[in-house]
């Protein structure tokens, strides 16, 4: 049986239906043919806080003699505010070095409040046999123009997840995000208790010793414990940061552990933390970077070690034929060839460099596995954390920071 339905009378209902289009036409006809304003307030703000990149000028350079490091004070080139950030986040610095086009992630070590004055500070510690770090330390001058990314990363305090008391384990330049967190607590932007266990080799090596002391004095939520590995001195803890030491400074009840430091520190500290039996969610680690010794990883296909492969890189309509060493991530080979490719974390996690492996094979260390499920299934790689195992063809996305 055919269905019957009406709201009012048949005539009224039909009129109502046809009025849909006459009303639309009338609404459009009545309107003004003004030029269309394509800008929207929320989008403008979003772009300001998440820019493609920020053009900065080096306005000051501070040397940390004993620590073989320098702090670079970047100021927004156009005098505007820098993108606001959460204390603990990093920026990716773009560098052109002898025909290479590389990025490096550096934690911001200044207070987020300073971003409002257009200021972002990073501290670069020298890396033996390094490439970018020695270059920056030697070549950066006041007045140089530098491109950096917006703030990136998720290594910051999250009230709903983390415990109120945070034990920070820092090694060497790994102190930088915690310095920023300490400033943010002092400036009322963050609210948690931060005890920093800071490992340095000797007293002379301690990066930001005065700054840390000062901010701990200013704010009773911050406590700094220096731990010297190569020196016994009064007023300092001695040795490596181990389970016993953490327990000594940890509060009763729940606490979070935040770690940032060199690879060797992570590997040592992780074993120590295991002894404490803390819930996984209370242990946070800043990005690791990728190992320099990929061949030493257990599941690495050893037969590839030492080889050099041919890689065809496709970006848009352009194709580049380059060589790639088995012991370096594919991204490093692309950068050495001076090809602009997107990257941020260089640890396999952020996905910024995600590329399509059209043919060939690559190895991703387990500790750098940050790919989405379907990406793994369909042969996508994160070139910053993928080591070539054969000749390959990859499609790399275009880059906006170059």
């Amino acid at each position, binding site marked *: 049986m*055919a*269905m*019957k*339905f*009406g*709201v009012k009378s*048949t005539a009224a209902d*039909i*009129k*109502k*239906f*046809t009025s*849909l289009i006459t*009303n*639309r036409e*009338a*609404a*459009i006809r*009545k309107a*003004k*043919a*003004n*030029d*269309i304003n*394509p*800008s*929207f*307030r*929320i*989008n403008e*703000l*979003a772009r300001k*806080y998440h820019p493609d990149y920020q053009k900065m000028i080096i306005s000051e350079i501070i040397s940390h003699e004993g620590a073989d490091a320098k702090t670079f004070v970047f100021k927004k080139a156009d005098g505007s505010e820098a993108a606001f950030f*959460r204390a603990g986040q990093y920026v990716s610095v773009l560098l052109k070095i002898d025909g290479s086009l590389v990025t490096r992630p550096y934690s911001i070590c200044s207070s987020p409040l300073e971003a409002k004055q257009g200021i972002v500070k990073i501290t670069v510690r020298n890396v033996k046999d390094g490439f970018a770090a020695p270059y920056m330390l030697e070549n950066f001058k006041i007045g140089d123009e530098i491109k950096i990314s917006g703030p990136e990363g*998720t290594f910051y305090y999250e*009230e*709903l*997840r983390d415990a109120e008391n945070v034990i920070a384990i820092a090694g060497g330049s790994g102190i930088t995000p915690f310095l920023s967190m300490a400033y943010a607590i002092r400036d009322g*932007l963050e609210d948690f208790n931060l005890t920093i266990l800071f490992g340095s080799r000797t007293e002379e090596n301690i990066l930001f010793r005065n700054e840390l002391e000062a901010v701990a004095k200013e704010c009773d939520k911050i406590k700094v414990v220096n731990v010297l590995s190569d020196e016994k001195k009064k007023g300092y803890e001695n040795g490596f940061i181990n389970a016993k030491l953490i327990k000594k400074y940890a509060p009763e009840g729940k606490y979070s552990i935040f770690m940032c430091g060199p690879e060797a520190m992570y590997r040592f500290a992780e074993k120590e933390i295991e002894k404490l039996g803390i*819930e*996984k*969610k209370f242990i946070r680690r800043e990005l690791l970077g990728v190992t320099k010794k990929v061949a030493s990883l257990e599941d690495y296909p050893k037969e590839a070690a030492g080889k050099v492969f041919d890689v065809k890189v496709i*970006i*848009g*309509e*352009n194709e580049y034929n380059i060589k790639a060493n088995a012991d370096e991530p594919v991204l490093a080979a692309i950068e050495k060839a001076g090809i602009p490719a*997107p990257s941020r974390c260089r640890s396999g*996690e952020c*996905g*910024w460099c*995600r590329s*399509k492996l059209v043919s060939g094979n690559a190895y991703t260390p387990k500790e750098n596995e940050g790919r*989405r*499920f*379907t*990406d793994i299934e369909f042969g*996508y790689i994160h070139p910053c954390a993928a080591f070539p195992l054969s000749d390959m063809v990859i499609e790399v*996305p*275009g880059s*906006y920071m170059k």
Partner: protein
Amino acid sequence: MKKYDYIVVGSGCAGLSAALELAVSKKKVLLIEQHNIPGGCATGFVRGRFEFDPSLHELCGVGSAENPGGTREIFNRYGVDVDWIEATDCFRVISKYSDGTAMDVTMPSGKDAFVDKMEYYVPGSKDAMLRFFDLMQNIDDGLAYLSSDNINPANIFKEYMPMVRSGGYNTTDVLNALCLPEKAKDILSVYWSYLGVDMDNLSFLHYASMVNSYVKFSAYFPKHTSHEISVKMAERLRELGGEIMMGCRAEEFLFSGDRCYAVRTNLGTFVAENAILANINPDIIFGRMIPPELVPAREKKLCDARKRKLGARMFTAYFGLNKTAEELGIKDYSIFFPQGSDSVAEYNSLKRISTNNYSIFLCYNVHNPDFSPEGTSVCSFTTMFTSSTDFDNLRQEDYYKLKTAMAKKFINTLKEKTGIDISDAIEEITIASPYTFARYLNAPEGAVYGYETREWDGIIARTIEMTMGLDYKVKGLYPIGTNGVRGDGYSSAYADGQIIAQKAMADSEKEGK
């Protein structure tokens, strides 16, 4: 310079289906996308050991392999094979009936089950509910007839009179005319938020085509986040000979005379012999991306008439939990927490941060235990803001605090209304706001639903406009996406991409290309 038959700008749901429609029609297609992943809203992101779906709750019109809905038919047509999971219940809602009494209702999918359950909650509702479903079916058939090739107007008035007679009215008017009991109407009002327009302003045809599809075909979601859908569509496009460029942002459309023939991007300029389909909001296309003198007056007037009345802006908190759904006592895939049954009052309360107490809770693991690693689960809470100026001048330091405050409100709502407490199990948390969506999608004000589909700008009015050819825009350039004839939602966007791709091909043919 390489030449293509068609270029699709933007790989959102509409962009992906448009590109596939062109590719299965043997056209040479280039798809460009500003990000390094396809999908727009339909994507996934990783935090720690969890993968999250930023947007999809349930996909409309999928249906089973044996009884496919329109959305599955689109995927079948393109040869895209997604690992679908069925969400067997339509929803649970914990709220208040309009008479003030407590409502805690779980509605199953399947017409018969839905009608029976309604009768259980609202005795005496059955006859009216059956009329409701008959009407929705007539509308479904009628809309399908309208988009078929040979339409006979007389037939419309013969076979699809119920559609015509309900078609001009809003949802409240039609539910009243169906003589549904008050409480049944209260329960049926839950769906309004999927379309972001309250029941008094939501076209019944729009509402009915969605509700019928959800109930009839059940809701589905992909096994591994929407990223699975988007990657599979993109991979299929490659197989069909389409090209894809990622990290490729369109800056400007280039014209020869009054005809768009190319797009300039950060990776160079690309030429389309036939047309360009842009998965971009029309105000951005016509306001910034084409020469001002070529913007059609009608388009300017349409923009002015819309008065920037953008639809819902989402605010979502995603949680990776270190306990299973079972351990936490979570049994429902999706729970709606409206303040009450008055959608108009609710709509108005969503204008301000201070009065927004709405949320929809979701836990993927309920139907898909493998969604996250063993011993864990993933859940999310979503609310939306209707046109709101509260975000216009928010300071950054307040923004972070707002995110935390909103997330706390979500967690507390769940706890108060169901006794489920997730607060000690949070291992990962990420919060997306209108800013997040504005930045990532370029959607004006972060309004992922596009312009509100209300009154004269509802989808039926948009459809008639297109069918009558009143919407003529710019030669060689077709906007696609949520501002189109199907409105918001994944399934609508897939359909829109397909419809407009077919239209573009038909137009080209007429031009003799």
